[in-house]
């Protein structure tokens, strides 16, 4: 493991550098031994808690209380900060899992809590990436016990890093993946980054556990494939590339977002091609998906 990290201030990073740094952190998680449980330490800059290559929590030094802020905003009207902090204190005193207590208290739904933890974890990893933090140690835990409902694959966190750019696009891409993917397939939605070369992952299938480096490589190739094929047939609906054995890549484009499905069986690929080939849609997105929520 690299040992180059200490707390150090760095200048403003390019978006390209930021993407590469975030990818590096997530790739480090993917490279941990399959059943490893513990804390991936980034010097004194922060920590990522991992169980079996799933990310359970991340913290970066300046954002210790961020989860409370996110949870407060999960309801309308906002949950009073003091109410959440009271639950935190009670959990600490009784040694109870925080997530379970928050859901039991009715302050937040299970999906709301999952979404809040994912947002917090993504922001922490983005912060670590911004300061170019490098993991210097993995501190194994002797016991397992993270709630799998509230942990995430590296791919899921990678997709979350782009949500703030365009939440509507992220949501519609998630829905498209949910709608189209079949058993024995997983996949991702991606766009060209405005700032860096290559694909920017904006959504992934639930529990997509492909190593992030592999996923980005597949998406980069797929976007080139769609571009080139469109040069000879502008009305392309779906492309399937089959490898020896049963694995296939199925790729398509909808409303300016590209999709790649990785299929581990011929039947899964055939079902996707059949469904997508029947579609008849233009490539002009509804107005609600074209509004840029946050400027470049």
């Amino acid at each position, binding site marked *: 493991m690299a040992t180059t990290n200490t707390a150090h201030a760095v200048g403003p990073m390019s978006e390209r550098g930021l993407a590469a740094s975030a990818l590096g952190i997530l790739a480090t998680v993917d490279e941990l031994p399959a059943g490893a449980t513990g804390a991936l330490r980034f010097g004194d800059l922060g920590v990522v808690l991992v169980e079996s290559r799933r990310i359970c929590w991340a913290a970066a030094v300046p954002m210790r209380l961020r989860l409370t802020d996110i949870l407060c905003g999960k309801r309308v009207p906002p949950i009073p900060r003091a109410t959440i902090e009271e639950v935190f204190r009670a959990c600490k005193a009784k040694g109870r899992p925080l997530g379970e207590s928050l859901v039991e208290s009715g302050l937040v739904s299970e999906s709301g809590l999952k979404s809040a933890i994912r947002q917090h974890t993504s922001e922490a990893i983005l912060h670590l990436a911004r300061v170019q933090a490098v993991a210097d140690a993995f501190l194994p835990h002797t016991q397992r016990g993270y709630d799998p409902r509230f942990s995430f694959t590296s791919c899921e966190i990678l997709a979350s890093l782009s949500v703030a750019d365009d939440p509507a696009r992220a949501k519609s891409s998630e829905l498209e993946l949910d709608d189209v993917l079949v058993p024995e397939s997983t996949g991702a939605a991606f766009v060209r980054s405005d700032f860096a070369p290559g694909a920017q992952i904006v959504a992934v299938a639930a529990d997509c556990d*492909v190593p992030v480096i*592999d996923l980005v*490589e*597949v998406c980069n*190739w797929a976007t*080139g*494939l769609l571009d*080139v*094929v469109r*040069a*000879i*047939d502008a*009305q*392309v*609906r*779906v*492309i*399937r*590339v*089959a*490898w*020896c*054995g*049963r*694995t*296939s*890549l199925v790729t398509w484009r909808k409303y300016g977002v590209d999709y790649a499905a*990785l*299929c*581990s*069986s011929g039947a899964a690929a055939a079902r996707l*091609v*059949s469904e*997508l*080939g029947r579609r*008849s849609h233009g490539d002009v997105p509804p107005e609600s998906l074209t509004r840029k929520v946050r400027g470049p």
Partner: protein
Amino acid sequence: MTGSASTDERASVDLVHALASMHTGALVECDATGPERQRLEDFAAIIPSLFRAHDLAPLGEVLSRLGSEGQGTSLREVLIVSAEHVHVMKPLSDGRGVALLATSPATNNVGLVLSAVHRRTAELEGE
């Protein structure tokens, strides 16, 4: 001979095909003419940029990790379905670096198009 479908295939699938070099993107054999030949030429022309060996190997490895042990990592087939056409590219396994290209109207059943392509590939590999 490569260019148009054989009579029994024509009865069920309207298909034109050709052989193309995967290295140069040039048609090696093609009897089709007019717009059908143009479509095959256009299709052939994109092959080298997409399927260079150094691009495909890692991608095949990524995909093979999803499947069962011992699966190969070489390209088997490319299928493109558009509003108007179905295009198929299938490399021949005889080591010549040549692929069979086929184009059919989208009104044809994709499964029948693939069956016709597989049948033609088997014939060519048996020659």
